[in-house]
């Protein structure tokens, strides 16, 4: 992916990897099952990258989002932005990951060591179990 966006005029490349996490805020997560509205994912990525190119016309950007079950420690998303100057590369990369979190229709279900499965809410904290009353932000 880095090679895909590289070119001689680009002096700065920013790569972001989002990785399945099992930290103190999680509770024995072994993997995350990613599901998506795949046709809309493609359409929305097209719009998101077009927005990014409008803001940073010199940046070259590539994105990969994995779906399905991804074990702890593996990356679910990779974003690379290469640009003539580093500020553009950082900003474009950050813009795309923030856009993914807001716009790309993907959902996560945490799979835990105790066998439970918990949908992740958008703040990143799994607060809603499938049997609870639905909440919506």
């Amino acid at each position, binding site marked *: 992916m880095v090679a895909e966006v590289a070119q001689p005029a680009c002096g700065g490349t920013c790569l972001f990897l989002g990785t399945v996490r099992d930290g103190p805020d999680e509770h024995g997560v072994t993997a995350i099952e990613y599901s998506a509205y795949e046709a809309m994912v493609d359409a929305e990525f097209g719009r998101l990258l077009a927005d990014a190119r409008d803001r940073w016309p010199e940046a070259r950007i590539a994105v990969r989002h994995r779906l399905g079950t991804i074990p702890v420690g593996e990356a679910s998303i990779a974003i690379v932005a290469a640009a003539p100057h580093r500020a553009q590369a950082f900003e474009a990369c950050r813009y795309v*990951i923030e856009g993914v979190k807001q716009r790309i229709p993907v*959902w996560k279900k945490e799979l835990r060591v105790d066998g439970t499965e918990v949908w992740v809410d958008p703040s990143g904290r799994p607060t809603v179990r499938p049997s609870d009353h639905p909440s*919506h932000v």
Partner: protein
Amino acid sequence: MDTATPARVRVLFFARYAELVGRSEVAVSLPLPATVGDVVRRVRQDFPGAQALPERPLAAVNLKQAKLEAGVQDGDEVALLPPIAGG
């Protein structure tokens, strides 16, 4: 388009919503003019489990996010989206 003709709309459910409704897709017919909100009300009324959906879910029409006030047309694909949690 004749506004008296009922519109037939595909409604898609994802993730937690698909679990609540017990299926990932239904079809509804409703008289035009109609909005995304009308589609949501119809779904919540007609399908067991769908009452558990929020009254104002995030929605998309034909692969693009849409407000509940947006109009729908015959043949549209309306998706009800749980809070997005990708990345």
